[in-house]
């Protein structure tokens, strides 16, 4: 691949009725490391993130224009199958979403339906994914037990394992620690730092210390516009950041 960027976003505009959620965003997300979206609530961070795997279009009443390229191919082109695209792009939500089934069934939920692995390799895949999500030692003796009995921090790591089992090309995380306590947050942050060597991660956060701990590069959004982007230290020191986080300015 000659193009080093993972996502190329050009003129991306999202409106809900007449209300603009994103206004002509142009951004390149590089193919390595952790890239963070920061900004105040309602700035359009999650909207931008969900436009990267076309999950946004499942929300009725939104109009999406502009272009997004993933690995140099446009994802909003008519020939693209959005389901196949989503299968290649893993996603972690703010609240862990656990299916009311066993831990094992949860880990294998995606990979089983997508049919990307032969049946006999599924168990190994589950173990691998749970190890990658640092959950294996805690659950290996109760894989058949209900996933709903796990703590919320464990549930979030189970969700991570579930998406890792599908071997995605990139991970999108939408404020993955905002529902968690400090210890679980630290566990997820450690995982982000560890996983970034294997696959790029795009992270939405409103927690600036977290952004500075985890992200190599940041994009600052404010009221649906991309204010600036660049190396983390640069963005966190910029006067624009202070302005943007003052409630009156947005």
């Amino acid at each position, binding site marked *: 691949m000659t193009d080093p960027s993972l996502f190329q976003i050009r003129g991306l505009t999202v409106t809900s009725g007449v209300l603009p959620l994103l206004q002509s965003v142009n951004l390149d997300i590089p193919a390595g490391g952790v890239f963070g979206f920061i900004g105040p609530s309602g700035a359009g961070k999650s909207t931008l993130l969900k436009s990267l795997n076309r999950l946004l279009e499942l929300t009725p009443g939104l109009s999406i224009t502009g272009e997004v390229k993933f690995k140099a191919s446009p994802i909003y082109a008519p020939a693209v199958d959005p389901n196949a695209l989503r299968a290649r792009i893993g996603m972690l939500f703010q609240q862990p*979403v656990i299916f009311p089934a066993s831990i094992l069934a949860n880990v294998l939920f995606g990979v089983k339906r997508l049919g990307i692995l032969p049946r006999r390799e599924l168990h190994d895949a589950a173990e691998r994914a749970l190890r990658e999500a640092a959950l294996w030692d805690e659950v290996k003796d109760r894989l058949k037990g209900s996933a709903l009995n796990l703590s919320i921090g464990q549930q979030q790591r189970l969700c991570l394992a579930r998406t890792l089992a599908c071997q995605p090309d990139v991970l999108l995380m939408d404020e993955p620690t905002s529902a968690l306590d400090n210890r679980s947050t630290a566990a997820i942050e450690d995982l982000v730092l560890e996983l970034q060597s294997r696959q790029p991660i795009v992270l939405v956060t409103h927690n600036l210390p977290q952004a500075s701990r985890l992200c190599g590069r940041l994009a600052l959004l404010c009221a649906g516009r991309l204010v600036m982007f660049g190396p983390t230290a640069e963005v966190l020191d910029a006067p624009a950041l202070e302005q943007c986080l003052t409630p009156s300015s947005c």
Partner: protein
Amino acid sequence: MTGRRRWSLTKWVSGTFSVFALLALAALLVLFIRQSLPVWRQEGWGFLTGKRWFYRQEEFGLAPMLHGTVAVALVALGLAAPLGIGAAIFTAEFLSTRLRLIVKVAIELLAGIPSVVYGLLGILLLRDWVYEAMERFEPLSGDTLLTGGILLGVMILPTIMTLSDDALRTVPASQRLAARALGLNSTETVLHVSLRQALPGLVAAILLAVGRACGEMIAVFLVVGRQDNQWPDKLFSAKPLLEAGQTLSTKLGSSETNIAYGDPLHWAAMVALGLVLLALVTFITAIGVRLQRSPHET
């Protein structure tokens, strides 16, 4: 909630009314059991298993009517369950909230049509159609268990649909979104997430509809033929469906009930029919309600 709530006037009054309702049900049961005692003394369990009902010979067996009830309910269910659940998948999973409510109101209006009107429609449209469609099996007329079942299927369709729709809507949207984010398409999401998690509610919808189907009288009465003592030669065959039959409720709705009132034994037999019907419907409905109220796991 912490601590005990004190008894308020509202609580007293509503509590008293609830007790009244329960007492009325208990009194009804006691009355029915007492009134039906003579026939239980004479027939014993034979009342449930006996295949002959000739009141002049004082023979009372309700098995053919039980068969009729079950046959009619099964036909109705075979027709209405797939259609109703299929339609509910459409309204719950694919329609916008606004459209869904419009469709739901329309469907619930269907459920409010008096059953005698359905019965008239059955005579008008269904009877001849069944007779002609089944001509090569040589039915004696269009008044068959099948006709009653089809009509009943149309009648319970709204119940199944609207209850299934409710059951599907209890599955949180976040569950569907998580499945879609993993790359499942909308069909796979319906199959593996929505239907799977709504399953107890769907079974409840079916059971509540069956409860209604078993008790339904007038519409079936008009098209089922009301032929007594139709015990099939082969229990698990479709052939008896093309013959006239009788269900527990159509028997009770017939003029025989009035005739029976003068004769203690005959009257006891009719009341016992009512008791069996009551027990059957209550049992099925109770399981349905229980499943429906079982809390969602997430």
